């Protein structure tokens, strides 16, 4: 590869550069298209009553997705109520005590669970809760979502705790602070922004999950806050409106999707801002 750069080589170089630019554009393009369509088509049905009313039958104007929003909030809170402690404690174990075979096994399991398709977690919730209770329920949905939530948060908790320098732990121990207090009130606190970010990102993820809920919570046309009953959720409503044959339901699917993406993106951005503030 000696000598001068010939015209042909120069031209190839330039062409490849533009090919890479094109790749980048094509990668980003769908994002803009999706957001554009969501805004245009979603705005059509976006009214206050969308957020406050129950769904109405086909043909009737108006109606909303309030029960879906409520259901999503309830199922998400339910999932997190036990998943956050389990995941954070497991992450603490792996980062602070986790040496040896047991810890390796847990790490491997967590990595494996992260890659399992979410529909399979739905099957898990179905077999474990829907079958014995003989009824679709919010419990089953939360069980399924936990299996998606927990591994993600275990990983980020462990990673974030590992970024805390040893000198911080030593400083605390040297003050005569017991080890468990050092872990909980010094180390975890030092990593808290990162851990919280991980929790929020996992939360955004389960808010948008549809497949596991389809076979566990089923969905509901009405208000339902009992946890042992089929419950509505926003992604499920978007799905059932989208595959319905009715034009005005399609509009509602777009509006619901717009609400859903707003929730998910807001949480995502809050999470990112949190970690940026730290440094």
């Amino acid at each position, binding site marked *: 590869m000696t000598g001068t750069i010939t015209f042909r080589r120069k031209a190839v170089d330039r062409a490849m550069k533009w090919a890479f630019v094109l790749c980048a554009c094509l990668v980003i393009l769908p994002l803009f298209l999706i957001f554009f369509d969501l805004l245009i088509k979603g705005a059509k049905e976006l009214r206050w009553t969308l957020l406050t009313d129950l769904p109405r039958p086909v043909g009737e104007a108006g109606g909303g997705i309030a029960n879906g929003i409520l259901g999503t909030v309830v199922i998400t809170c339910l999932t997190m109520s036990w998943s956050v402690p389990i995941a954070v404690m497991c992450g603490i174990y792996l980062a602070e005590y986790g040496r040896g075979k047991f810890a390796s096994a847990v790490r491997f399991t967590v990595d494996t669970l992260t890659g399992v398709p979410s529909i399979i977690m739905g099957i898990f919730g179905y077999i474990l809760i829907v079958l014995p209770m003989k009824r679709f329920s919010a419990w089953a949905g939360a069980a399924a979502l936990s299996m998606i939530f927990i591994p993600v948060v275990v990983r980020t908790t462990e990673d974030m705790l590992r970024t805390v320098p040893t000198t911080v732990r030593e400083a605390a121990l040297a*003050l005569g602070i017991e080890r468990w207090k050092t872990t909980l009130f010094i180390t975890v606190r030092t990593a808290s922004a990162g851990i919280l970010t991980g929790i929020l990102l996992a939360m955004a993820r389960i808010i948008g999950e549809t497949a596991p809920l389809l076979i566990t919570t089923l969905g509901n046309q009405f208000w339902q806050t009992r946890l042992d009953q089929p419950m509505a959720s926003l992604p499920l409503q978007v799905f059932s409106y989208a595959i319905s044959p009715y034009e005005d339901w399609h509009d509602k699917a777009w509006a619901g999707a717009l609400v859903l993406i707003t929730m998910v993106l807001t949480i995502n951005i809050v999470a990112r801002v949190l970690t940026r503030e730290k440094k």
Partner: protein
Amino acid sequence: MEIVFDIRDLSSWFGDHQILKKIRMQIAKNSVTSVMGPSGCGKSTFIRCLNRMHDMTPGFRTEGEILLDGVNVYSERIDPVYLRRRVGMVFQQPNPFPRMSVFENVAVGLRLNGRNMSKADIAEVVERSLTMAALWNEVKDHLSQPGMSLSGGQQQRLCIARALAVAPEVLLMDEPCSALDPMSTAKIEELIEDLSEKYTIAVVTHNMQQAARISDNVAFFLMGELIEMDKSGKIFTNPSDKRTEQYITGRFG
């Protein structure tokens, strides 16, 4: 002269690698004892034995005894947590707790050590500790700022204040000035002298001038052995061991 630490034939290992070889020395109350020697001589390892900071290190073990007021600190009956409350430590790199204010950095030891103190009492201890660490005047208007926002020298004095707040009897310092500029170093050295009236202090340093300036007694370590220990004045003018002389005349290290 009252003896605080009586170290008897202390040896230690990381795995198969022996770091300390049969160290015998005594640390006197309300004095400044410097531990000096070239890097890798085991001086940091030694000082970290005195408050059992190696407990967390896998593969670390010791033999011999370290008597604190007559009780072996490595005996089964001693909880390292209580030992460390009596024997405080300042580290090489200033290490204030991130995400905590100046005030919290000093107060956190009191709060987490399970003493039920009123807010006013805690504030008083914080002020007293910061004053003793010669930092109060510089930070009294910025107590709620992050500890990390202070300069390096201030951070180190904050760490000293943090250690003082839990009322230790002994203060261990592991090369406390090696990360600091000359001005900050001078301040810390002055502080060490002041503190020695109330506290027993052991300082690790590889800086002979510093050892000469601040210490009452100096111990010289080489390859994990204590070569000699004597009054500061004696060791720098008339060392009894040839190796000490070679070291202080700059022949190695």
